[in-house]
């Protein structure tokens, strides 16, 4: 369950070493146990420098992939999880849990309480999931809320003290590092009995509950006979409960209108105390039919102090909010494009913004564009080989808009133009970016009146909703599109 060491390494492409160790922490008492448990297969934790070098190499983050290197490029060197073996000093350091996110590499080495040769299956090592949770916790702490470098540096400087609280001996006590920060600050508060470990202190002030539902819609549209379009909604319900008392109980119900799309694949926050079996079993794996559970979805819980994600869900709405096609034909150095977008009548026609990005990969810079848009305006980013069609806040009454034009490209100069491994030849896409406030595609909402709070005082309850696009692609129907379509083909055929 324990970790032998933890690292944060910033990945700096182009720098001489490829990165810098921003933080590291070793746990010698755990190391002591590793030596005994691992026996002859024990490999000690290396110093930061050699560790970083080996990890960057294994993660392919050093800029030297010119030559084939067997230890990295061999076909039998297959990694199917974020757990690696690093060759260091003649031995293999394993298991190294590591991933890259926002140019930061998060890594740790869990203790394995048995011999390492042969490698035991990861599922049998409790420290693996604990290690992931620790790294996710650090990642959340660093990046939730703020993004600029100064703030991140400040947070990095707080890490040693935080881990002294949250993980003093290598066994993680709380993955929520913000809690640990608060507990340092709250140190003088006397805790009554049965205080949950995930809640430092208590709230004092005006009671209020805020519930915000954010739905992201993804889509893959092809406009082809033999390939079905796909789309999916992913929802997240975020809560912040400012309530007095040690263990206030809250129940939130999510409801759907009569024609709403059932919520599926529901994952809840650990503070949820019980779950209806209908919620537990409603899954996108099953074929949809009228008998699908359509709510209300009740979530009784004891809230932590901070804002948290009460639940996530997915849903299969009957139609995508915007249906379109994209046709692109190559004619020597020019391409002719035609785009048509249609907003579904059931969707709220009031966007915060709506844009279609049309990138051109593996070509030279744009030298000339002739275009005609039925609505909105077209912006040209020549060097980036990108067109952005700004649609604005509303679709016109007809709900249908179109763009046609010819784009001419200059000579391809290698380094500068965007490279893409999918968009080869005619394979191309446009990507929609939009956001609609006070709206969900599933129709899902949290009724203020259905929120039950068992705590002193009547809280103010506020609810928010929004729909945003995410990975909303429309592929060129005049050329092959990526094989991902097959997965959806399967999906559709099974439904019929």
């Amino acid at each position, binding site marked *: 369950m324990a970790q032998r060491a933890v690292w944060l390494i910033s990945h700096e492409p182009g720098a001489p070493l490829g990165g810098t160790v921003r933080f590291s922490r070793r*746990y010698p*008492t755990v*190391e*002591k*146990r590793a030596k*005994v*448990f*691992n026996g002859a297969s024990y490999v000690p934790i290396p110093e*930061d420098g050699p560790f970083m070098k080996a990890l960057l190499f294994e993660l392919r983050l050093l800029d030297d*992939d*010119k030559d*084939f290197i067997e230890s990295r*490029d061999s*076909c039998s060197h*297959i*990694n*199917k*999880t*974020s757990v690696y073996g690093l060759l260091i000093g003649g031995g293999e350091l394993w298991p190294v849990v590591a991933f890259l*996110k926002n140019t930061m590499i998060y890594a740790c080495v869990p203790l394995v309480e*048995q011999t390492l040769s042969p490698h*035991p299956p*990861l*599922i*049998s090592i*409790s420290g693996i*999931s*604990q290690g992931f*949770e620790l790294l996710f916790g650090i990642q959340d702490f660093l990046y939730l809320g703020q993004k600029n470098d100064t703030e991140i540096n400040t947070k990095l400087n707080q890490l040693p003290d935080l881990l*002294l609280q949250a993980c*003093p*001996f290598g066994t993680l*006590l709380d*993955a929520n590092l913000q809690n640990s920060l608060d507990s340092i600050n709250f*140190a003088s508060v006397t*805790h009554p009995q049965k*205080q*949950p*470990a995930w809640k430092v202190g208590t709230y004092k002030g005006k009671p209020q509950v805020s519930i915000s539902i954010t739905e992201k819609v993804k889509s893959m549209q092809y406009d082809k006979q033999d390939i079905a379009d796909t789309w999916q909604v992913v929802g997240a319900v975020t809560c912040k409960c400012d309530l007095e008392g040690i263990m206030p109980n809250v129940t939130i119900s999510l409801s759907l209108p009569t024609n709403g799309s059932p919520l599926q*694949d529901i*994952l*809840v*926050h*650990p503070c*949820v105390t019980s*779950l209806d079996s209908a919620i*537990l079993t409603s*899954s996108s*794996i099953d074929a949809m039919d009228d008998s699908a559970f359509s709510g209300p979805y009740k979530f009784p819980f004891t809230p932590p102090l901070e804002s948290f*994600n009460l639940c*996530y869900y*997915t849903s299969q709405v009957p139609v995508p909010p915007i249906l379109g096609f994209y046709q692109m034909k190559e004619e020597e150095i020019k391409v002719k494009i035609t785009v048509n977008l249609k907003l579904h009548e059931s969707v709220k026609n009031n966007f915060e913004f709506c844009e279609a990005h049309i990138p051109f990969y593996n070509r030279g810079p744009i030298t000339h564009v002739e275009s005609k848009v039925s609505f909105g305006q077209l912006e040209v980013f020549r060097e980036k080989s990108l067109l952005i069609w700004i649609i604005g806040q509303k679709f016109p009454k007809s709900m249908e808009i179109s763009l046609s034009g010819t784009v001419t490209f200059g000579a391809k100069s290698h380094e500068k133009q965007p490279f893409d*491994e999918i968009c*080869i030849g005619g394979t191309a896409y446009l990507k929609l970016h939009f956001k609609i406030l006070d709206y969900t595609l599933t129709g899902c909402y949290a009724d203020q009146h259905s929120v039950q709070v068992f705590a002193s005082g009547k809280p103010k309850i506020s609810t928010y909703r929004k729909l945003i696009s995410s990975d909303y692609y429309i592929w060129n129907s005049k050329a092959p599109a*990526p094989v*991902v379509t*097959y*997965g959806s083909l399967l*999906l559709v055929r*099974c439904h019929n």
Partner: protein
Amino acid sequence: MGPRGRETWAQRLGAFRASPSAFMAGPEGEDLGCDLLSELRSEKLSEQTKVSLLALSLEYPAQLWPDTAAAEAAATSLLDTLVLLPPRPSALRRPLLLAATTALAAGDALGPTSAASLRLLPLLLGLASGSDLGRGFGPASEQRSLQATACECLRELESCKPGLLGGRLGLLRGLLGQEGPVQPLSLLLALALRNALVIQARARAGLQGLLMAGDAPTVGIPWNWALAEEGAAHLQPQAPGWPATEVQECGLAVLEPSPEEARELRAAVAQLLDTSYLLTPVAQAQLLWLLGWALRGLRGQPPVLFKPQLVRLLGTAQLTLLHAILALKAAFGEALFTAQDEALLLRRLTLAAQHPALPLSAHLFYLHCLLSFPENWPLGPTGEEAAPLLLGPRLCRGLLPSLLHNPMALLARLHLLCLLCADDEEKEEKAQDWSPQHYLEELLAGLRQRAALDGGPRALATLCFQASYLVVRCLAMQPAVLTPLTRGLAQLYQSRPALAPHFVDLLDRVGPELGEPLRVVLRQEVVARPGKDEALCWHLQILAKVADGNAQSATLGFLRAAAARCTDWDLQQALLQVCRALLRAGVGKGLADLLQALARQLEDPDGRDRARLYYILLAHLAGPKLGVALGPSLAAPAASSLVAENQGFAAALMVQEAPAPIRLSVGPRRAEGPVPVLQLQVEVLEPVYSLELRFRVEGQLYAPLEAVHVPCLYPGRPCRPLLLPLQPRRPAPTHLDVRALYTTPSGLTRHAHLPPLLVTFADLFLPFPQSPEGDKQGFFEELWDSCLPKGAESSLWCPLGPRGLEALVSHHLEPFVVVAQPPTSYHVAIHLPPNSRLLLRLEAAQVDGVPVALRTDDWAVLPLAGDYLRGLSAAV
């Protein structure tokens, strides 16, 4: 070193962290540990700096205090510092406790003889129990946090020395029921309970009322080390509760608590589980792992206690919680999870493995869990990744790989797809609407298309080959998959020959199912080219891998065309590498011409030398030998190809000494012919070819001996005796030094030193060649007389055995008898090469012996003859 300011310490710590080993080897290294301890009491340093010093000691105690004594002293000093802190709030108490704990545990100092341990343990237990330890331990506001810290310290000590708290289980239970902080106490109790159960089970002891000790006084009574001493022997490699089959090994099944103990145990576990919702998710997971392990296989402890927790936990997205449930599943199987529960768990896992709200790393881990899912009734062999029975194609729908996936996700999903394809093949009625094979084919085609992108990143190519390898490994028996794969790979090579190293690597790792057809198509692909294009070096690299005895003329034609273009060293070496492969494959005709041409025409002298070497090898070594000599050795390319080659030859062509598989002995004597001849008998333990036996005589006694050759010898198959003619220069016995040179079945030449062979005096005996038919007596008398006066004369008594003189003569002297009057009188004439004679008269034999008169023309023979005769009587 004097006191240091904050700045100096910051620098010093920075330098240390940059490279601890370099710092400790430097001039400042030695004093760091001592300085750190003394500075903690300095009034000049801020608390913040002191905390950073303690933080360092938490990470690097082994560097600061490298031996047990130093660790003990450090812990003592840290405890002293703690006691001396003024009673106001301080940020140092917690890190001091952690540091003292770390120093003792990491420094191997924890134990009944360590004074620091005996101070620290009661202190920690006191703090953990919330006892009032006096004002030295800070204001009341700090007590709660110190109580939790003390629990953490005790938990770490218990982890390092299982059983340490075995005697305090009752106390811990009591504390948990009171006001103590729930999480630290729960985890501490669960760990101590688990360890106590494991140790007691191993020692075949019961719980001995450990759980019911109640609120024993914490201070003042000596610490009970008995269980820890027992446990220390068990901190050894072991499988932590996984898989369930190892229960027996852990010996847990033998622990059968009494009904009362079982009740107490159940109550303790229920108490822990009931308050588990107060723990953070990661701590809940730890608790479940510990309790699962503790109760696994324990009789009379139904795991239903866990059931109420499961429903709550199954709904979460928390990696640790789902993982802990899987651990319980592995530990208890059907006892805790019915078939329906198993199906639900699988569905949740499948869902989690693709849920868009979860990060990629979590998806990948869940996918791994799916393929290693602890089924109630697994069908396949354990330890191999397999799709669980209940995970049909329908559930896997959302888990299919696509080109848009990250490489790891793609490979993980591809593995699942391959397993589905394998299942699909086994099923008789296949799904009509969807074929996993077809999907797989499309995906691989897409991967190859990306890998073929000129100038694309190597990662794309690597991914394509990894996917191909994975498919071959899972579906090696399915020609329907392998045929298009082979064709696709050939096309990939056609469009991007620069991927040659990947192809070579793939050929090295796949079995013949793909390897054989792929070799053929790649060879065809390469030799069909004019040998003049840009990618010549890649073609040569491929050809060196795939060239064999087939399509010789096309291959040689390609090489001849290529030779003209091989202007630089690299290309020439690559070309010669192909020649080498052909040499090994036994291609002779045509290759000799090519090599000769290369030996003349290549620009680089190194290349010419190597070509000549190959030519010579080809001309002089037989096929099998050549194969061995050029065996797969070629180490990393050296500065000269000859040097590199040599490394291979050293093993293959040089004669290595080895213990002989040959036994050599001297057979019966064969007194005939002009010279004495030894009959050698050979036995071998393994087949031996081209055996050459070389003999050498010490000094100049004999003329040099000819070597004996045998083409082949097999164990157990008799071999005709080998004849070794001796040419003595003096008639004297000697030792022959024997060496054997032979070839092993694997074609290597070996050399061995055999035990020396003894040539006895009698081995040299020859009859007189010109013994006349007529007057034998006269002939003998003539010889007898001729010995003197130059020679010597003697007589001796030769004792006879029960069978008398006749037997003695017929056994030993038969060939040399000139005149015989059996049974009492014999005249014997022996020719001793080169030109000595030995004459014996054995006359008037009596019952127990015979007088022997003896003459020789060589006085040096006399003692030998005497010894021989005396030896005879002993032998008969």
